């Protein structure tokens, strides 16, 4: 059942990264750690994509001295997807960071549950 796991080792590593990030994002109470977890998760997916596109003994998909043969280059599609994915991840990170800044400015802590309890005490928020 798992016999191919070693052959697909690189993808397996990427998946484990993804799982680690997922868990951090889900279960860390500290906001910054959650954020890091999210980045790890995305990185896992990107690594997965990259290793998916890689083909033994081929070059990056940039036409060099006019060779126009599929057998010469690796699969360009995952590379494109990774590019898009990176941009998305950067934007999301920026937004999350600014949210964290706001919350820290207001509640002076990064512990999500603490913030939650504190936020219940405030008149303005009714």
């Amino acid at each position: 059942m798992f016999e191919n796991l070693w052959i697909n080792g690189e993808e397996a590593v990427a998946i484990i990264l993804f799982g680690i990030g997922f868990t951090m994002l889900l279960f860390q109470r500290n906001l910054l750690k959650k954020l890091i977890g999210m980045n790890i998760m995305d990185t896992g997916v990107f690594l997965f994509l990259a290793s998916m596109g890689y083909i033994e003994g081929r070059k990056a998909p940039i036409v060099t001295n006019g060779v126009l043969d599929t057998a010469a280059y690796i699969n360009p599609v995952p590379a494109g997807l990774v590019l898009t994915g990176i941009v998305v991840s950067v934007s999301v990170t920026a937004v999350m960071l600014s949210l964290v800044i706001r919350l820290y400015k207001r509640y002076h802590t990064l512990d999500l549950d603490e913030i939650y309890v504190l936020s219940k005490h405030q008149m303005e928020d009714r």
Partner: protein
Amino acid sequence: MLFVVNFPLFTIVLSLFSGALCFMLPGKAARRYTMCYEAFLTVLCLWILQYTYLNGAFTYVMGEFPAPWGNEIRAGVLEATTALIFMIIMLTAVFCGYRFIEKDLDLSKENLYYALLNLMTAALLSMIWTNDLFTGYVFLEILTLTSCGLLIVREIGRTTLAAIRYMILNLLGSGLFLLGVVLLYDLSGHLLMVPIQKVIRELAADPNTLPVLTISTAILTIGLSIKSGLFPFHFWMPDTYGWATPTSAAIMSSLVSKAYIFLLIKIYWRVIGIDIVERMPIRNILLVLGIAGMVIGSVQALHADNINRMAAFSSAANIGYIFMGIGIGGVAGYTAAIFHIFAHAVTKAMLFLTTPRLAEVSGDSLLFKELQGSGLRDRDAGVFFTISAFSMIGIPIFAGFAAKLQFGLAAVEDGAGWRLILVFLALAVSSMLNALYFVRTIIRIYSRPNESTRMEVRPHHRAGYNVPMLVLTVMNLFLGLFSWVTVDLIHRGLMMFS
């Protein structure tokens, strides 16, 4: 090829451009522009609907490269109907809610809100039109970010907190969705929907790859159901909808979460293939989770002490309804689910746009005990709230009832068995609970307050509020009374899907 087929492209590109434009304009101008633009979009969507109804669905190549090389978008009756209803709701939400936006947001930032609104329109539309999984992912991220932006415009701690929890859950969802897309790409080597389905037909045939296929589908499903707030993941809803500014609350609860579900349905029908999905265990799990969501959401709504939180929990319950429809399966089940998407979108937008008015005449408090008699102080809002509440309860002639009828018919069509009993029990229980908490609220807002809590009635400019509300009411009644029209549209659309 008629000129109409270019309209889907225009709706998307123009929305993106208007986003950038509102970034330049000053606040008021941005608002006026957005209103006119949304109205224009509505007309375009109506046109597309009319065309697709007569000539059937069409795919539109983005650029000169056809599938499987270039991007594609696709418009069928179902897409057009959804787009039309979404646009109308967006328009009414902006019309009814902009006073509250002015109140909640600093003048120098008002244009940013409308820029975000336009970007969200683009994202919604492209998620509806898209014929390409990865495009779906990109615009899904835009939708997530924009909804976060719409949520935080009200700069109080609760919304920031709600926003961060919302973002966290949504990022989990997006991550899983991306992973699912990547897995599907690895399996099939394609990103466009139709070619993927071709390959998946072969894959599903041999028993070795079927489990992998199931897992990929499950991952996509989990991702999208987290984002749309299916039962175990519904806890972000009350804070998110409860504290946002009315327009955002209305748009997010009635459009955003529905758009995710629409994408899920589209993936089931056009990527995986509905017959293959029905063979997977996913269907039953969705049914059970949906029913659990219906019941638990309603119970939590019963315990809420704040009208917006109650409405938010009832949205959680209604998401449960929709997933129950998907779980029932078959054409009838999906028809019921999509019909409920429309019915609930119309109703819940109305609900979230009336509650702030009631709060306004009750000292800006949403607590039930402050709302005593607010329906008497602000007659219009009271009446519209009552209408939407009736529709939520599922009282005949309103949309909610027609939706429940559809669920019942779908369940019966699905055939006698445990699913049927379960569905009917769930319908009965959740309808009773709905009736309890909404009727309770209606009694509360119409019973006279004791002298101490009597508030003065503030003047409103009525027409600007009542006309869009009337539009929503008419849509509600149309869905309720002439449901077969909509059902027929949905049916045609689903047939065009496969």
